[in-house]
């Protein structure tokens, strides 16, 4: 049963990240996602210190705000201080992440987080922390939180599909018909932050990045249709979670690390053998067409 709980939680995290990741890479904002996932750390620690617990709305909201602040700071440094984009991203997220790690060390006694957990999470402990209603344990808390997050993201995408689509592919047209690109930009960033925070305990900061980018990049190589891309990205994420889990068990190592590795492996397979964009496939079809 514990195996199943871990796999399901991982799959929920992977799907949430994969859906948002598609929009991030289409908007050429993959590294901003990376930055946010690091930068929410101080938000998490501060929310922890204020509320004294993990499962509060304070944390989600606090981290959402910090995520938006991060995007804002990156843009500020780029536009107002005229620092090149790559450097503004690099400076901003390392700074916030460093503050987060220092806060954790300073309040080590009060905060139930440690440096390692920040990096690669504690998904193996997910089944231990169960949600209790009445006197009945109804399964791991993380499972429910991630379920709610995934549902929220799906609703966000379903109801904002047109707006997200247009602001992603044709911002000029979107603005012309009265859709605020800024609003949807920050909504998306807020969603990324919230997902990052919720996934934090399970997979840690850097591995959220793997799940945000790798499955979406895989799907991007397999299709030109956004709806298909979203679906395929989820599938790639879930596949990485399942295979990654068993590899981690086999090697007795970090589950999150193994999932990230498998996300990479799946990407490589898609890169080489994708029917439309695969490197081998293209090479083969070229040889075939020359031969005929």
């Amino acid at each position, binding site marked *: 049963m514990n195996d199943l709980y871990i796999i399901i939680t991982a799959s929920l995290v992977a799907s949430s990240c994969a859906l948002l990741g598609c929009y991030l890479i289409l908007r050429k904002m993959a590294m901003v996602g990376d930055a946010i996932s690091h930068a929410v750390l101080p938000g998490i620690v501060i929310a922890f210190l204020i509320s004294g617990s993990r499962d509060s709305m304070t944390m989600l909201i606090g981290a959402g705000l910090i995520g938006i602040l991060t995007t804002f700071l990156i843009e500020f440094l780029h536009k107002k201080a005229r620092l090149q984009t790559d*450097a503004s991203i690099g400076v901003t997220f390392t700074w916030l992440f460093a503050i987060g*790690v220092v806060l954790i060390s300073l309040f080590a006694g009060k905060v139930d987080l440690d*440096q390692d957990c920040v990096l690669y999470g504690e998904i193996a402990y997910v089944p231990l922390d169960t949600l209790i209603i009445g006197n009945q344990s109804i399964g791991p808390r993380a499972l429910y939180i991630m379920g709610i997050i995934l549902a929220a993201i799906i609703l966000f995408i379903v109801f904002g599909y047109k707006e997200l689509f247009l602001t992603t592919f044709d911002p000029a047209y979107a603005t012309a018909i009265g859709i605020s690109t800024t609003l949807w930009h920050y909504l998306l960033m807020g969603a990324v932050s919230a997902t990052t925070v919720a996934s934090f305990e399970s997979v840690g900061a850097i591995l959220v990045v793997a799940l945000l*980018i790798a499955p979406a990049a895989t799907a991007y190589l397999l299709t030109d249709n956004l709806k298909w891309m979203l679906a395929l990205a989820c599938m790639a994420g879930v596949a990485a979670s399942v295979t990654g889990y068993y590899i981690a068990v086999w090697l007795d190592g970090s589950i999150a690390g193994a999932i990230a590795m498998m996300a990479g492996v799946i990407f490589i397979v898609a890169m080489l053998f994708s029917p439309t964009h695969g490197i081998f496939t293209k090479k083969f079809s070229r040889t075939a067409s020359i031969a005929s």
Partner: protein
Amino acid sequence: MNSLLDFFSFADPNIRFVVIGSVLLTASSAIVGTFTFLHKKSLVGDAIAHAVLPGICLGFILSGTKNPAYLIAGAFVTGWISLIGVEYITRHTRIKEDTAIGLVLSVFFGIGILMLTVIQKSGNASQSGLDHFLFGKAAALVGQDLLVFGTVAVLLLLAVFLLFKEFSLLAFDKDYAKAIGLPVRGIELTLTSLIVLAVVIGIQAVGVVLMAAILITPAAAARFWTNKINIMILLASVFGAFSGLSGAYISYIAPAMPTGPWIVIVISTIAFISFFFAPKRGVVNRLLRQRNIRRTINDENVLKTLYQLSEESRNFFIQRSAEEIIRRRRFSLETLTKVLNRLKRQGYLEQTGKHWSLTEEGKNRGQRVVRIHRLWELYLTTHLNIAPDHVHDDADTIEHLLTPELEAELEKLLNYPKVDPHKSEIPYA
């Protein structure tokens, strides 16, 4: 306070090692990082930093010891593989570079974490301390390790010193470098190798996760103080060394604290101070400068308008109301009131009740603006063959910018003309 004295007296040889080590590591990273920054490869530096983790683990697994030479070799290999990976993905698929960087970074790091956890559970006693590579520990730099890392740092500095001209040229004008026959590809590969090496030794001080910061943050900060590359490198290395020193000190007084994050906080603070308060490029000064220019333009426009209102009657000291000014040239009443009061303080205007009149100085300044405007219009039509109805906007801008020297030159060039293309008189003092 005692600890501060103890630390900075350097009496303890261990402290001496740690200080020399961390200053050397951060300064050399900062120097290599300056080129990383100028070549716009900041995030590539981040990717390499994450990607060396599996290499370090691999070096440990294969050699069974924590001998830094093996770890450096392993890190160097995976660091390079990650770079090749980013380049391969960007070149052969439709994935963009930033996505490729994020992908390679996180996947390599995931593999590294997996290997690290496997090693930790393997029961190999000598593995303890490998996790220092995650967040860095300057205090762990002792004896033999220092020798290895120090040698690499010195080699890095030497390489940068020898290839300084080539690296600079490539950062600013790649096409030119190609045209004069420099082996561009070879130089780029050398620089990349240096970045990998800098990362490999730098992570000893700050750790994998925050390595990107000591590569690029000192350079980003230094960029705000100078336009000269050698001064920039000097500043970056000083900033880096200072943060390294602070890190070593923190590592000494609070051994439980991770050193890396503190180093990053110190260097980021320096960077943010630079972004905001650097004299020329800093945000605050730039905004102030912009405000001053805006003020000058508004001031001169009001003086110009007052001058023009009286041009026909030739009585320039008539009292006029704000409404009269607005009727001639559009200002918001709020701005105009501010400008009028400022001009009064500066002695360009006099106020009687609700009416304003030019002083002698005010008249002269307004006249000068009108003169430059008309001279410029004439210049554009006679010397650049622009139609007379197309020259006004341009003249409206230049009238606030032209220096007295250029003004004199323009007058001479046009041979002290009497009228502009619209037959308006060009006034002389």
